[in-house]
C-alpha cells in the first residue's frame, strides 16, 4: 500500500467534514497571508533599496573606502578618478554624482525628499534606456528626467512640468523608471553640468567612479592595479558587489529588514500553532479509529503517513488560499506605498516551503498522540 493510499485516506478524512475543513484551510491561509505580507515588505524594501545599484552597468565601481552604502554621502576627489583613468586596462572612468535634496510638488508646493543623480550624458554606464532618448534635451539648462514611479506625493509630473529642485527652478523634459525606496520618495536624473549647478555641489565630490575596462582586460587584474596605484584611498567593487552591499545593509543592519524578517518568523510560528491546533483536534477526534487501524495490523508508518498527508493537504489548501490573498494584498500595498511588491514564482515557492514546513512540523507534533494510543484499550 503506497503513499497514495494514505493520501487518499487523509483527503477523505478531511473532506468528510467540509465545513470544518474550510475553517481549517482559512486558519492556515491566515498564517500564509501574514508570511506573504512580511516577505513582501522584506523583498519590497530590499528590491527598492537596490533599485539604483541594479542599474549600474560599469565593469568596476570605485568608491571612498568609508562609504558603506550609496546613500552615506561619503565622497572622493575627482583627482583620484583621473589617476584611475591612467591605470592600464581602464578605458573610461567617469563620475556619478548623488545628492539628496527637496523637490517641490508642482501642484501644492509640498517638499519631498528625492535623490538627484548626476550622470555623464555621453557615457552614463547606467541601464536607463530613457536617458539616451532624452540626451539632447538634458543638455539644456536646468533640465531633468523625473521618476515615473515616484510616490504620488511628489505630484502629477509630465514632460514640460516646471517646479523647484533644491531651491532652483527645473524643467522636466522626460520620464524614466526607478521607483522609490525607504530613504527617498523618488529620483531625478540630471546631466553632470546641470547637477553641478545645484547649491553646494562641487566636481570634487564624486560619489561613485564608474569604470569601463578596455576590451580583453581582466577585471581582477585591473582591480588589483587600481588598489596598488591608490592604496587605501579607494575601494574597488563590481556592480554586483555594490548591489549586494545595498541589500545587506537593508536586510541585516537596518532595523526594517530585521523587523520584517522577524515578522516572517512570527508568521511561521503562528501558522505552526494554528496548524497544530487543527491537526491535534483532527487526530483527537479520530483517535479510536487510529487505534483500530493499529490493532488490525496497520504499521505505525501507515498512520504517520495519514497524519502527515493531512498536514500537507492543509498546507496546500492554505497556501492556495493565502496566495490569492497575498496577491491582492501586494497589489494594494504596491499601490499605497509604491514599493516594489513582486509576487514572483520563487517567492511563492519560498512561502509554500514555509507553509508545508509549518504544517509538517505541526503534524509531527500531533502524530505523537497517535503513536501513544494503545490499541489494547479498544477492548
Amino acid at each position, binding site marked *: 500500500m503506497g503513499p497514495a493510499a494514505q493520501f487518499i*485516506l487523509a483527503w477523505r478524512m478531511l473532506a468528510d467534514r467540509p465545513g470544518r475543513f474550510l475553517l481549517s484551510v482559512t486558519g492556515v491561509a491566515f498564517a500564509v497571508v501574514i508570511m506573504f505580507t512580511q516577505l513582501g515588505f522584506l523583498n519590497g524594501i530590499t528590491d527598492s533599496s537596490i533599485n539604483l545599484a541594479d542599474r549600474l552597468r560599469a565593469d568596476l565601481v570605485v568608491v571612498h573606502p568609508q562609504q558603506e552604502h550609496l546613500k552615506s554621502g561619503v565622497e572622493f576627489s575627482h583627482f583620484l578618478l583621473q589617476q584611475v583613468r591612467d591605470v592600464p586596462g581602464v578605458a573610461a572612468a567617469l563620475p556619478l554624482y548623488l545628492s539628496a535634496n527637496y523637490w517641490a510638488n508642482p501642484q501644492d508646493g509640498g517638499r519631498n525628499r528625492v535623490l538627484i543623480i548626476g550622470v555623464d550624458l555621453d557615457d552614463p554606464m547606467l541601464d536607463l534606456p530613457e536617458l539616451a532618448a532624452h540626451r539632447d534635451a538634458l543638455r539644456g539648462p536646468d533640465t531633468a528626467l523625473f521618476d515615473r514611479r515616484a510616490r504620488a506625493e511628489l505630484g502629477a509630473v509630465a514632460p514640460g512640468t516646471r517646479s523647484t529642485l533644491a531651491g532652483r527652478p527645473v524643467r522636466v523634459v522626460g520620464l524614466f523608471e526607478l521607483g522609490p525606496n525607504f530613504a527617498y520618495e523618488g529620483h531625478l536624473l540630471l546631466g553632470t553640468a546641470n547637477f553641478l549647478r545645484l547649491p553646494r555641489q562641487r566636481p570634487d565630490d564624486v560619489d561613485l567612479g564608474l569604470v569601463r575596462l578596455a576590451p580583453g582586460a581582466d577585471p581582477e587584474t585591473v582591480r588589483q592595479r587600481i588598489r596598488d596605484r591608490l592604496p587605501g584611498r579607494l575601494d574597488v567593487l563590481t556592480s554586483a558587489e555594490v548591489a549586494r552591499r545595498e541589500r545587506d545593509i537593508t536586510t541585516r543592519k537596518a532595523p526594517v529588514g530585521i523587523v520584517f524578517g522577524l515578522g516572517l518568523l512570527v508568521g511561521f510560528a503562528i501558522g505552526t500553532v494554528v496548524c497544530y491546533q487543527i491537526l491535534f483536534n483532527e487526530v483527537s477526534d*479520530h483517535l479510536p479509529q487510529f487505534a483500530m487501524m493499529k490493532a*488490525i495490523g496497520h504499521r505505525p508508518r501507515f498512520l504517520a503517513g495519514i497524519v502527515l498527508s493531512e498536514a500537507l493537504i492543509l498546507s496546500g489548501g492554505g497556501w492556495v488560499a493565502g496566495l490569492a490573498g497575498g496577491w491582492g494584498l501586494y497589489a494594494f500595498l504596491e499601490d499605497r506605498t509604491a514599493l516594489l511588491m513582486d509576487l514572483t514564482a520563487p517567492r511563492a515557492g519560498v512561502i509554500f516551503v514555509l507553509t508545508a514546513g509549518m504544517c509538517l512540523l505541526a503534524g509531527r507534533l500531533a502524530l505523537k498522540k497517535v503513536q501513544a494510543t494503545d490499541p*489494547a484499550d479498544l477492548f
Partner: protein
Amino acid sequence: MSSPVPRETAIAVADVDHHYGAGEARKQALFGNRLDVRAGEIVIMTGPSGSGKTTLLTLIGTLRSVQAGSIRLFGTELAGLSPAEQVRMRRQIGFIFQAHNLLEALTARQNVKLALELSDTPPAEHDRRADAMLEAVGLGHRLHYKPRHLSVGQRQRVAIARALVNRPRIVLADEPTAALDQESGANVVALLRRLADDQGAAVMIVTHDNRILGVADRIVNMVDGRVVSDIRIRETMLICAILKQCDVFKEMSPSDLTDVAQKMAEERFPAGAAIIRQGESGEKFYVIAAGRAEVRRTAEGSAPAVAILGAGGFFGEVALLRDQPRNATVVALEPVVAYTLAKADFLGALRTHKSFEDQISAQLFHRG
C-alpha cells in the same frame, strides 16, 4: 450426528501471568492461566467484571506483550515478538471490538477494504471480496453508506465484515452482540459459527449475552484472574445424547448425566484398530459416538465375533466392576469416535448413583 475431524490447536495459553503497573501500583491481573482452543471451536468467556477476560483476550490478540508464560497461535510463540512482528501477527487475527470504530469518513465498502489492504489479496479483487463479505452480513444494499447513515446494528455488522474479510483463523470478539437486537445478534453469531465450521477458525467471544451461549463449543469462566471452569458444552450435549441411548444410563437425571459426560474424553480409532484387548487389565469405560466395532472373544484358538456395536453402544464396564482382565477384544470396523470414562470416575459415579449401580449389576448378571 456430526463427527468433526480432529483439529489442530489454534490457541495454546500456558502458565500466563500478567501484571499491570509498576512499583507500588503493580497489580497482578492474571494468575497461571492455561487454555487451549482448537481450530473450529467457539469459546465463550464469561466472568465478573475485572476478572481478567479482556486482559487475556488482548494478550492472545498480540495487543499486549506476554510478560510471563507462553501463548502460541498455530504454533507461533507470542512471547518475545518484536513490535513489528506483533503488528504482522495481528493481521492474522479478526478483531471485533465492542465499539465498532469504523472510519467515519469511509463507506462500508471502503472500511472493509481497509482490512483487505493488509492481506495478500490482489487489489483488483478488493471490491469484489469486500462486497461479498458485506453481502454475507446482509449489507449488500449498503455498500456505499458511511457509518453515520447506518443503524447501530448495521455498523456492528460492517465491523464484523471487516474482521472476517481476510478469513482469519483466529477471531477475538468483545461483546459483539451487546449493541444488537435479538435478530441481528443471532445473525452475527450464526456467521461466526459458519466461519468456525467451514474455515476452521478458532473464535473467542467475551460476552454476558446468554442468548448466544448455545453457539459455543465451550464456556470458559474466569474469576479473579483465573480460569475456574472450562465446560465443553457442545461435546457434553453430544455425549449426554449418546449416554441417554444406552440402557445403563437411561434412568439417570440430566444433571448426573452431565456430570458423567464432562468427565469423558474423546478418543478416535482408525478402522481395524483394537480398542481393548482380551486379557489386558481394564482402565476405562467406552461409549461409541460414531462408527461400528466388533466384539470378539477368544476360545480355544479361534476368535469368533460375538457382537457388533454401533453408535450408542458401550463396553468395558465388566472389567472395571469385577477388577478382572478384559474378557473380550473390541476392534474398530470403521473409524470410531468414542468417549471414555476413567475407572475411578466410573466407579465414583456408581457410588453416588444407587440405581445406576443396580442397573449395572443387572447388566453384569445379564451379560454373565
